[in-house]
C-alpha cells in the first residue's frame, strides 16, 4: 500500500486525526518557545551540522578511536554489518549469560533490526520499558513516532489495553492511574531482568563513553540492575569530543519536546566491576547512504522528531502510514535508500514546504532531499499510468497559453454548472472533505485587462 492509501485509512477517524494534528503542532510550538529562549540557537544548529559533517568525513577513524578507548575502559565492542549480524551478536551475549529475560529502553536501531521478534522466537522475553513503547508493544504495533511512540493511541485505547494485559480497572483513560500501574508492572520486570538493552544517543570518540537520554529513567533502571548491559548504536552516533555533547544536548530535547534537557542524560564510561558492558556498532545500510552525496547529510539525524511534529502531512497521516521504522520527513529520505521500490511513495508524502528543514537541529536539507528522491523514483520505479498521463497533459497545457486559457474557461464552466455529484466525485481529490471556492466568471488575466482599461 502506498503512503496515501495508508493515510486514507488513518483519516477515517476524523476526530482522532484532528487531535493528532493539534497535539503534534502543540509540541512544535513548545519547541519554538524553548529554542527562542536560547541565545545563539541558530549558531548552535550550524555548529551541530558542522560537527556531524566532520564526523561523516572522518567516520572510520573516529570509530576506531572510540573502540580503542571503550576497550581500555573495559567495554566489549562488537561490529555488525547488518541487522542479521546485530541480532546474532545480541543473542550470543544473551545465550552466554543464560539470559531469559530482557528489558529494553527505546532504541530505533533495534526496531530497525527487528530484534524483538528475533529474540522472542528463541524463547527470550523482551519487555519495552519506555511507556509509549510498552503500549505499542502490547498492542502488537510498531511505534508511530520516534519520540512519542504511542501518539496515535487515545487514552481510552490505552485503558483497554491495560485492562487486558495488566488487569487494571476501567478508568476512562486516567493517565496518572495508568502510568502508575505501568510503573508497578515495569518495576517487577526491571528487578527480574537478566540483561538490559539500550540505545545510544551519542558515542564520544575521545573518551570511548556514550550517553543515553530518557525522561522516564527506564534506560538507567534496566542498565544498573541487570548484570549485563548491551548498548546498540548506528555508526553515525559518533561525535568527536565530549565538549560536543554541550552542543547536542542543548539542541536535542528542545527540538524534540521543548524541554530544556531530558530528565536523565546518563554518561556511561566504565562497567561496574563484575558486570558486563557491551556496545554493538551497526552499519545496516548506513555506509550505502554515506556513498550518496545528495543524501549523505541525512546521517546527521539525532532522532529528535522535530520534523515529524512540524510536518503538515505527518500530522494528518500518522506515523504508520509511512510503513517504515523511521516515519515522517526524515524517514522519507532515509527509507528510499534502503528499499527504493517499497518506499517509493514516501518522497511524495510532502508539500515541500520546507518546515522540516527549518526546525532540524542539525540542518538537514530534508525537503530538498525529498525533491531529489522524487527525481530518482520517477526514473527508476514504474509510475501509475494515470499520474504519468496527467502530468504529461498538464505539461502540454502549461506550455501553450491558448490551450491553458481554454482549459481554465472549461474548468470554471464545469465547476459552475455541473451538478454537485459530478464536481465532488471521486476523481476530484480537491473536493474531498472541503468545499471548492466560489467560481468567478473572469480569470486573473481578464480581470487585470479590464482593471487596466478602467483605470486608463
Amino acid at each position, binding site marked *: 500500500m502506498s503512503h496515501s492509501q495508508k493515510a486514507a485509512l488513518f483519516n477515517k477517524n476524523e476526530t482522532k486525526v484532528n487531535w493528532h494534528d493539534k497535539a503534534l503542532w502543540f509540541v512544535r510550538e513548545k519547541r519554538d518557545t524553548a529554542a527562542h529562549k536560547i541565545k545563539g540557537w541558530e549558531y548552535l544548529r550550524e*555548529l551541530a551540522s558542522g560537527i556531524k559533517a566532520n564526523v561523516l568525513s572522518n567516520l572510520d577513524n573516529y570509530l576506531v578511536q572510540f573502540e580503542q578507548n571503550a576497550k581500555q575502559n573495559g567495554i566489549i565492542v562488537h561490529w555488525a554489518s547488518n541487522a542479521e549480524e546485530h541480532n546474532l551478536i545480541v543473542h550470543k551475549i544473551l545465550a552466554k549469560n543464560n539470559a531469559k529475560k530482557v528489558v529494553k529502553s527505546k532504541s530505533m536501531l533495534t526496531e530497525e533490526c527487528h530484534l524483538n521478534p528475533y529474540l522472542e522466537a528463541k524463547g527470550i522475553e523482551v519487555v519495552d520499558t519506555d511507556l509509549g513503547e510498552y503500549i505499542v508493544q502490547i498492542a502488537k504495533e510498531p511505534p508511530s513516532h520516534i519520540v512519542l511512540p504511542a501518539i496515535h493511541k487515545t487514552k481510552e485505547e490505552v485503558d483497554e489495553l491495560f485492562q487486558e494485559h495488566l488487569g487494571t480497572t476501567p478508568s476512562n483513560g486516567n493517565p496518572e492511574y495508568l502510568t502508575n500501574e505501568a510503573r508497578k508492572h515495569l518495576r517487577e520486570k526491571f528487578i527480574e531482568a537478566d540483561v538490559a538493552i539500550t540505545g545510544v544517543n551519542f558515542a564520544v570518540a575521545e573518551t570511548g563513553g556514550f550517553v543515553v537520554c530518557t525522561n522516564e529513567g527506564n534506560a538507567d533502571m534496566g542498565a544498573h540492575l541487570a548484570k549485563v548491559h548491551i548498548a546498540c548504536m548506528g555508526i553515525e552516533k559518533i561525535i568527536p569530543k565530549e565538549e560536543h555533547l554541550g552542543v547536542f544536548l542543548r539542541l536535542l530535547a528542545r527540538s524534540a519536546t521543548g524541554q530544556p*534537557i531530558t530528565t536523565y542524560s546518563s554518561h556511561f564510561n*566504565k562497567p*561496574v566491576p563484575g558486570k558486563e558492558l557491551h556496545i554493538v556498532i551497526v552499519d545496516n545500510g548506513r555506509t550505502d547512504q554515506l556513498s550518496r552525496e545528495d543524501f549523505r547529510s541525512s546521517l546527521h539525524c539525532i532522532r529528535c522528531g522535530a520534523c515529524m511534529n512540524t510536518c503538515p502531512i505527518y500530522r494528518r497521516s500518522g506515523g504508520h502510514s509511512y510503513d517504515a521504522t523511521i516515519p515522517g520527513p526524515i524517514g522519507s529520505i532515509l527509507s528510499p535508500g534502503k528499499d527504493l521500490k517499497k518506499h517509493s511513495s514516501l518522497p511524495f508524502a510532502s508539500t515541500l514546504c520546507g518546515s522540516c528543514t527549518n526546525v532540524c537541529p542539525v540542518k538537514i536539507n530534508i525537503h530538498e532531499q525529498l525533491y531529489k528522491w522524487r527525481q530518482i523514483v520517477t526514473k527508476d520505479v514504474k509510475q501509475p499510468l494515470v499520474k504519468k498521463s496527467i502530468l504529461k497533459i498538464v505539461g502540454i497545457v502549461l506550455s501553450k497559453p491558448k490551450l491553458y486559457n481554454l482549459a481554465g474557461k472549461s474548468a470554471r464552466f464545469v465547476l459552475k454548472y455541473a451538478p454537485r455529484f459530478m464536481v465532488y466525485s471521486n476523481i476530484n481529490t480537491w473536493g474531498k472533505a472541503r468545499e471548492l471556492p466560489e467560481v468567478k466568471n473572469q480569470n486573473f488575466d481578464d480581470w487585470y485587462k479590464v482593471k487596466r482599461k478602467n483605470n486608463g
Partner: protein
Amino acid sequence: MGRAAILKSIQENKPALVPLPKIDLNSFDEIVDLLETFKSNVKLVGGDVIELASINDLDTKINDVYPNAKKIVAQTSASNLGTISIAKDTDPHSLEIIDLAIVKGEFGVTENGAVWISEEQFPVRVLPFITNDLVIVLSKADLCDTMHSAYKKIANRQRSFGLFLSGPSKTADIEQCLVIGAQGAMSLTIVLV
C-alpha cells in the same frame, strides 16, 4: 565479523575531510542571574527547590517535605536521616524498597535546571533512579550557566558513570498528558545551601 567490512565501506564512501568547527563560546554570552534562573528552570522541569540559610536545618526541612519516608539512604555527611547504608558491593536490587535517597550534587546548570551527579556520590549506580523520592543537596556557589561550561567542569573527572539529572522522572506517552513519576524517582527536591 563486520568490523573490517564496515571500515572499508566507510573509507570508500566517505567525503573529503570536512574541518571540525571550533565552538565560539562568545556567541552564547548572556548576563543571567544564575541562582534565579536555575531555580525557575528546576520548577519548569517539575522539581522543587528549597533554599536553606544553614546546612544545620537540612534534616528538619527534609522531614517536613517527606514525613513518611522510613527507608532512607543518606549519601551526605550533612544529613543524619539515613536508616540504610550502602556500599559498592550492595546488591542494587535490594534498593527497591528505598523511600528516599539524599545525595550531594556536584554542580547545577542554570539553562536547564540540571544537576551533575556521579558515581562518586552514590556507590550503587541505580540509587537515584530506583528510590521513590530524591533529594539533591547543592551549594549555591556551584552553579554554571550553560552545558558548555558544564562540560568544562567535568572534563577532568574520573570517568565511570555520571549524569545530568533534570527534574523527576516523567512521561507524556498517554495522550500527551504530563505525568510525574514514570520509571524513576517520583519527585525531586533540590536543597540549595
